């Protein structure tokens, strides 16, 4: 039941941010919403109620490294599109490897 609730609320919040990004201009500004804390807003509210504030604090401490990985992911995606002339979809999917390596590396070295 809780998973279903997360699914519905998560979908709603993510859609809300995505819809907002679709109407704002210019494109670089709309891009800000691709890194909006939509997933976090949807998840953390529920986690505070079910697991408590300290659990959320521990999650968001890790999230700092996740966000840093997201920055490197976006930088890699820009490079793949502009320097290596890859289309958006293959660039965005290939760059996921950068996010994974950075996030898992941070977890293994600093957070574990």
């Amino acid at each position, binding site marked *: 039941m809780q998973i279903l609730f997360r699914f519905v609320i998560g979908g709603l919040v993510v859609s809300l941010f995505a819809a907002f990004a679709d109407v704002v201009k210019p494109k670089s500004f709309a891009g800000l919403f691709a890194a909006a804390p939509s997933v976090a807003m949807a998840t953390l509210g529920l986690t505070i109620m079910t697991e408590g504030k300290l659990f959320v604090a521990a999650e968001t401490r890790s999230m700092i490294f*996740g966000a840093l990985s997201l920055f490197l992911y976006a930088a890699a995606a820009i490079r793949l599109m502009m320097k290596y002339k890859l289309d958006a979809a293959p660039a965005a999917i290939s760059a996921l490897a950068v996010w994974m390596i950075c996030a898992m590396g941070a977890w293994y070295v600093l957070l*574990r």
Partner: protein
Amino acid sequence: MITGVLAGHYGSVFGGLFLAFPAIFPASATLVEKHEREKKRRAGITKTARGREAAALDARGAAIGSIGLIGFAFTVWRLAPIWNGALALFAALVVWMTLSILIWRLRRHRLFVRRGRASTASSTAISSGGH
């Protein structure tokens, strides 16, 4: 949902990383590229890099937003244990928005300056007959 499942299985420290997983960007960049290509196709231009450039601009925005996301996570990390949970989340959302817009504005100003220099250089090249 996946974040919740991962946090449940592997703990809050591992699950927290996925709160900043690039879930929206691949879809939004693909859509931006598609829309831009369609716009050009309707104008009769079939081969263009405009779609890719628009998606790269979207990615630049995402990079700036991710710096704001670091501020969001830091704010919740520090405030959640001592504040009301909803208030801490709201404060963090304000931090994300403020930080992202501030950096975007600073970056835009710098881009404007660079673009100005570039256009001056290219107009100089054109006026001197070079490419």
